[in-house]
């Protein structure tokens, strides 16, 4: 019985299948990472209250004006949260994310009662004269074992380029 002639294409095909295994491992690790940080079944139905997003004066640490969805890049702004609407047996924090996904403002973690005197959460860009333009996301998170697992409230604001 004659052996089938050697075909290098089959070797290339097998190499591709080996790379496939690596690819599946990578994608599975990605999926595991996603599930770890976004665990299913974490919805408690709780809702935090974001009073609004206001212009902010860093000197006096006070907010002013109406609740807004857009700001100029020269304007400082902050979110105001009402922690009283949340139960005391949970751990929460509040964070600002800039357009690159960097945390640019944060209070917590702690129980809602521990955060009652930190209702104003400003955006702070260290080392920059102005805010970077783009979309900013403000979230109030519920934490489990130090990891945010549920968003209790969310606001998105736009910092305009001009």
């Amino acid at each position: 019985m004659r052996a089938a002639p050697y075909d290098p294409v089959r070797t290339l095909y097998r190499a591709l299948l080996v790379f496939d295994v690596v690819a599946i491992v990578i994608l599975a690790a990605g999926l595991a990472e996603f599930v770890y940080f976004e665990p299913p079944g974490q919805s408690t139905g709780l809702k935090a209250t974001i009073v609004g997003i206001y212009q902010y004066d860093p000197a006096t640490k006070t907010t002013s004006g109406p609740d807004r969805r857009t700001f100029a890049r020269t304007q400082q702004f902050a979110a105001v949260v009402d922690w009283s609407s949340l139960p005391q047996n949970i751990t929460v924090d509040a964070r600002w994310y800039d357009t690159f996904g960097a945390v640019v403002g944060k209070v917590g973690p702690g129980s809602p009662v521990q955060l009652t005197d930190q209702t104003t959460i400003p955006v702070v860009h260290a080392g920059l004269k102005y805010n970077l333009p783009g979309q900013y996301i403000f979230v109030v998170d519920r934490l489990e074992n130090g990891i945010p697992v549920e968003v209790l409230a969310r606001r998105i604001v736009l910092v305009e380029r001009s």
Partner: protein
Amino acid sequence: MSATSAVTAANPRPRGRPSRYGIAIAVAAIVLVVLVASAILDYVYLDTIPGRTSLYGLVAVALVALGTFIGVRALDRDPADRKRHFIRASVLLGLAALLWLLVIDVYVFTGSAGPWVAAICAAVCLPTTAFGLFVMRRLDRNEKEPWRLVLVAAAWGAIVATSMVIWAESLWGTIAERTLVPGPGLDASNAFSAGLLEELAKGAAVLLLFLVMRNEFDDVVDGIVYGAAVGLGFNFLESIAYMTNLYAIFSPEGVGGVAAGFQWYSRQVLGLFFGHATYTALIGAGIGIARQLPNRRQKVIAIASGFLIAIAAHFSWDAWLAFFPIESSALGLAEIHLRTLIMTGPFTAAVIALLMSGLQFEGKALAEQFRKEAAEGAGAILPSEVPILTSPWQRLTQRMHALSKGGLRAYLALARLQTAQLDLAMERWHRERQEIDMPLEAERELRQRVIELRRSVTF
């Protein structure tokens, strides 16, 4: 049955329409329908800048489709008509590229960065991208792919693929930002979005080339070249987009030029072959291997594997980039290079390994076909030419000799002869491996062409 009808040929082009053309039309139709429908939906429901861009970009996409259609049809025309059709196709592709750049620049960035910044960014990305395309084409040392197809592949990557992903990624990102917890989970989601959508959009172009231009898509080497060309085209426009965007963001801080320059270096120098070129080359490798596999199941697995590996490679970069933080010191410069090498290097090494194996396999197969053709004594390939044709270096030496003896005309005539001889050997190889899906023009037509070209070699 006549001798002519018994002979099947992969090159030149078929007279009929093989069944794979139906698949190609279906893929193109799906791409077009998805593109149009999604752009309109995106525009209506999101009304964001990318939404408007994708809608207005449809004109550019239509021009690319028309230009490509005319360009591909031109190959069927008589040589006298062919040039005219190629010029038409080139003009349409050029208009599409300009229009798309205009759309990107005017609607997305120039409001802040200005048209001059966009033009400068495009101007600095052009030489590096051209260099990338030149290198990739040169790597195919046994039988270089025609520039027209390499450029069409790059244009599709730059215009069609980017247009397809803008809407889809906007939609995915908008939904994710409103539903997921910001942080690593959202980052992973965005990485899946980029890996999946961008690789599917880029890979569609390689798949269409494989289906429509089978006679110019021989094996894994060609797949890698076309895939990398699509990736380089995509990287070209993405680089401009990031450069202008970051210039606009950081110019009020006085570091707009630095931010744009850093993007240029990381995408057009450091990441030129490591990023999109590598990812889409992996898709091309899968399709190229499928080209030579005997059964349909294996073909499908090979094509799916190429896509899967590319998606995983792209995903790993986008998702885990943050695990390699870069210090804002001189050490950071070394870290940037190391990060690229560690994260994308293994995938680029895989592409290089497949390319080298493919080149070696192709080279041996062509050498064997040169010898067989010479042994038949038909006059297309002479026994004395076999060692020259087998070696890319000796072919170049012979052409340079022709240049010194007979000038440019002699050089070009010899180049045409060598190309036709390589086509003949490639044709014989595919016929021997039974990789031809339908009877084509007679192989003797190719042989006759070689003999005619030989007469024009004067030195």
